[in-house]
Structure formats: structure tokens, C-alpha cells
């Protein structure tokens, strides 16, 4: 059977490379069959929208659809760059990430170092189980809790009143939003993100610590001279990857927490795209905003990945 198919197939295929491909397709036909649904899924739900992003260069009209709407070139981009939103969205997106890097990034590292120092295995496991837990609480519940605790009669304001302060409604105050966002981010993810660092700590040979102890090093000295240097490669990679995402703030948490009185600090690119695009149906303009964000993010992540590869090749593995 196979003898009769191969010659007729290779006639169509022409060159040697094509023949090789057809042989591969035949030999691995079941594997390629498995890949059909995967390829379809990625084509339809990932690559088609990339192609559809050209709506950013057209003026979307509901009657004509994406492909019939008139081309307008970079109009929506220049509208966005000259609009009052541009600076505000860019600033909010970057600042939230910057604060999260400054305050949120070190938290799981410290956490992992401290967990690693726990002597008692059962206590260690308990600490891990409980501090990972907030990661599994849904965002809707987390934001529900935040609005409840931060309300003018909530727990936080109770404490402020107790110490003689005046209660304020935090979620109405633009100045408080970034603190709330980053603070709750730390609460949600500090424990969970420490897993990566804990994994790196496990591989530190215990002889290092024994030697240090014989030399009379105290705990602080051990952490400073052994634990942290051993963590540096992981920290560098995680930091680089984190910095790559500096233009990305997910819309979800913002949408759950913000309100018009704090748009000034809370509105980020993704929440703006949702509000103006999905809710107010200004598709072309927000597609342009989204595409701008995608391209900048891609450039950031790609260059950062390159840097990371360079580092890992030369110094890590």
C-alpha cells in the first residue's frame, strides 16, 4: 500500500524538502491529527484577532463589519496620543507596576528566606499552607473584602478612629488607590510567589551552612552571606521577567475596585479599553489603544527575554 502512494505523492511535492515533509506527515499522521484541533484553536482565537487588530486602522461601522469599514490610517493612534487620556493611562499603568516591583517584588523573597529558616517541619508546612491560601480566593471576593474593610465604617476606619483619627472613604480617594492595589496584591500573592524561591533554597548544599556555623557565623550572617547570594540568579530572572510586564495591568481588579471619582489614578490602559470599547462601543479607537499597549508590551518582554537568555546561558546553567 505504501509503495503505491509514495511515488505519486512525491511527484506533486517536487523538491526534496517537500518530499521530506510529506514523509514526515505520513509517518506521524496520528500526531498531526492530534495537532489539528490545537492549530484550529490557535488560528481562530489567537491569530485571527491579531489580524483583526487592523480595525485600529479603520473606522469601525457596525453595518460594514471589520472588513468593510473604511481605512483611516493612524488617525486613532494620533487621536489617542494627543488625547488627555494618553498621559494619564500610561502614568497609571507604569506607576502601579513600579510600586508593585518596589514593594511587591521583594516580599516573596523575604517570605521564602524566613520560611526556610523555620526548624520545625510541621510548623513550616502550616505556614506554607496558610500563606498560599489567599492566592486561591477569587478576585471578586478579594475586592468585596477590600471594599468592606475599607468602607467608612469598615475595620480599617474603626482602627483609625480608635487611635483618634478621622475616618475616610479610601476607595473614593485617588491618592489611596495605588496603595490599596499594590497592598492587596501583596496579600494575595506573597505566599504563593515564594514557592519559586523556596525551590531555589532547597538546592543550597547544607555543608555551606555548617561551614559557616563552624566559622562562628550568626543567623543574619548566614542569610546575608549564603542564602541571598544563592538566591541571586533566581531573583535576577524573576526581576527581569517582572520588569518586562511593566506595561501590563490586568483590567479585572481595576474594574472591580474603581469608580469615576478615582479614575485619575486608577484607570489603566486595559480598564480604559474595556470601558470605552466594550461598554461604549468605540471599537476602532480602543483597538488602537490596545494594539499600542500590545506592541509596547511585546517589545519589553521580547527584549527582556533576550537579556534573560543571555544571562542564563552565561552565568546560570
Amino acid at each position: 500500500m505504501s509503495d503505491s502512494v509514495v511515488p505519486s505523492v512525491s511527484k506533486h511535492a517536487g523538491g526534496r524538502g517537500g518530499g521530506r515533509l510529506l514523509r514526515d506527515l505520513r509517518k506521524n499522521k496520528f500526531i498531526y491529527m492530534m495537532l489539528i484541533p490545537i492549530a484550529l484553536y490557535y488560528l481562530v482565537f489567537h491569530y485571527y484577532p491579531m489580524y483583526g487588530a487592523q480595525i485600529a486602522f479603520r473606522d469601525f461601522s457596525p453595518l460594514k463589519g471589520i472588513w468593510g469599514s473604511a481605512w483611516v490610517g493612524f488617525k486613532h493612534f494620533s487621536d489617542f496620543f494627543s488625547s488627555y487620556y494618553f498621559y494619564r493611562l500610561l502614568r497609571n499603568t507604569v506607576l502601579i507596576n513600579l510600586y508593585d516591583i518596589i514593594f511587591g517584588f521583594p516580599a516573596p523573597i523575604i517570605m521564602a528566606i524566613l520560611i526556610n529558616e523555620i526548624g520545625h517541619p510541621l510548623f513550616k508546612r502550616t505556614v506554607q499552607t496558610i500563606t498560599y491560601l489567599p492566592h486561591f480566593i477569587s478576585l471578586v471576593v478579594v475586592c468585596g473584602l477590600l471594599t468592606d474593610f475599607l468602607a467608612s465604617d469598615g475595620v480599617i476606619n474603626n482602627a483609625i478612629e480608635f487611635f483618634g483619627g478621622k475616618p475616610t472613604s479610601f476607595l473614593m480617594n485617588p491618592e489611596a488607590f495605588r496603595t490599596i492595589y499594590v497592598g492587596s496584591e501583596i496579600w494575595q500573592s506573597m505566599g504563593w510567589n515564594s514557592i519559586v524561591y523556596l525551590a531555589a533554597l532547597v538546592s543550597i548544599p547544607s555543608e555551606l551552612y555548617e561551614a559557616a556555623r563552624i566559622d562562628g557565623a550568626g543567623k543574619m550572617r548566614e542569610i546575608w552571606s549564603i542564602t541571598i547570594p544563592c538566591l541571586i540568579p533566581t531573583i535576577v530572572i524573576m526581576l527581569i521577567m517582572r520588569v518586562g510586564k511593566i506595561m501590563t495591568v490586568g483590567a479585572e481588579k481595576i474594574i472591580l475596585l474603581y469608580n469615576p471619582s478615582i479614575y485619575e489614578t486608577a484607570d489603566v490602559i486595559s480598564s480604559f479599553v474595556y470601558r470605552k470599547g466594550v461598554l461604549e462601543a468605540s471599537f476602532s479607537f480602543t483597538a488602537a489603544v490596545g494594539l499600542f499597549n500590545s506592541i509596547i508590551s511585546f517589545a519589553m518582554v521580547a527584549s527582556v527575554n533576550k537579556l534573560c537568555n543571555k544571562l542564563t546561558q552565561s552565568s546560570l546553567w
Partner: protein
Amino acid sequence: MKIKKSAGAAAFSAANTAAMLLLMAAALYPMVHVLFASISNPTLVQQHRGLILHPLGFDLSAFKAVFNNPMIPVGYSNTLFYLVAGTAVNVLLTTLGAYALSRKGLLLGKYFMFAIAFTMLFSGGMIPSYLLVRDLHMVNSRLALIIPNAISAWNLIIMRTSFEAVPASMEESAKLDGANDFIILFKIYVPLCLPVMAVMILFYGVGHWNSWFSALLYIRKRELYPLQLVLREILLISTSDMTTNVTGGDAKANIGETIRYATIVVATAPILCVYPFLQKYFVKGVMVGAIKG
């Protein structure tokens, strides 16, 4: 060799224990607050100031109100459907893709892998995806919460990594016996990689349980709402409507707050109950991902 614990080490250990206890309290307190308040007397909760460290009286009327709210069972059953059907689709497709792309010598394999990894770095954005789902007539359809997120590239890579670790000899002997790739995958790879299958089910399952944004985008019909969207209405949008609908009595002004707490308990309890038993699988998943990443 045994080394005596110095006074400094003892002090460090004590300080560390204290810090850990504090962190655990910070992680747990919000949930404890919610639990205690939900079973407390609504009026006492209303008047109470500060931390709640024990139930204030005992009153289950908030839970009664929650279970009388027709949207709660609707949201619950919808979420269960999205979770079961969605996770089944997720895991099946991820397994197929991960197995296929873990094969060595596949001529197009590396192009596929690149195309998949590329989607993690770049996307067309929210609006083109939204327009696509709209054009596919998936708005207000349950499919909108299952199909557009059918595969997570990250999970596929995790699974591919663990498939690659299976020794090739297992596969070769099966091939000699005439088994095709589907048989090899489901009879050899899946049973051998059960832990990572469990990780996948958990990652996708928790994702579906907690997901609400796709539903916000694509679902307008309230009878199709997943639980998290119902929750959002109750917790974050209009609390007063909810209480009037549910109680209608004169205690309504007071009971609103406890109803919200009881809703959180009802919606979060399942995940918090299974979590301690499954934690090690989650951690394993993160480890596999971390090594690869």
C-alpha cells in the same frame, strides 16, 4: 558534628516564629472575620466596631436569605457546568497538544511550538477578540466561557515538559506491538503522568471557579451567569436591592452586611475545603513551570 545553638540563633528563631504567626494571621484574618460575622446577629455586627474575633451572638438568618436568593443556585449550577465542561475541554486539548509537541523528530513541531509560545507574548487585544466572539454568535452562549480559553499555553508547556521526561523505551516497545499514538498517549503517557494531569485539572478547575471577566464580556443573560458574576452583583454593585429582594422585612437594613458575608462563605467554602488536600499538587505544578521558565 553538633553545634550548640547560640543565644543569637535562639533570638532569631523566636523573632522568625513571631513574624510567621503574624503573617499567618494576616492571611487568615479576613476569612475568619467573614465567617464569624456571617453567623453573628446582624444587629450586633452592624453596631460592632473593629476586629471580630468571635461570633457576635448566633444567627443563621443571613444564610437563609442567601439560599433563598434564586441567583445563588443559578450561579452555582452554571459555574459547576462551566467548570466540568470547560476543564474537560481544557485538559483534553492540552494533553493532545502537549503529547504531539513532546515528540522528537516532528518536522513541523518547532514551528507549532513557536506559534503557541508567541501568543503568550503578543495578542491582538481585547477588542478584536470581543468582536470575534460576537461574530461567532457566542455572546450569551455557554460556549463563550469554554471555547475562547480552551488552551493555556503555559499549562501546555508544563505538560509537555513532563511528557518529555517519560523514557522513550516505553513508547518504542508499545510501537513494536502495533500501538498508534492515541493508544500510546492514553494507555502509557496519561497513566504515567497522573500527577501532572491532576495539576492541570486543578489549575484549570480553579481558573473556571474564580473566572468572571469572560462572563462580564460575553454573558448578558442572568440565567447564564457564573457564580462569580452573581457574587460581584451582591458584593460590589448594589447591596440595597439584594436585601430588599431577599428579606423585605424591617430587619433588612441590618441584615445586608451579614448577607454579604454569608454569600462570601457560600461561594468560597468549596475551594477552601478542598485546598489543603490538593496544595501539594498545586505546588508541584508551580515547580515544573518554574524549572521550565
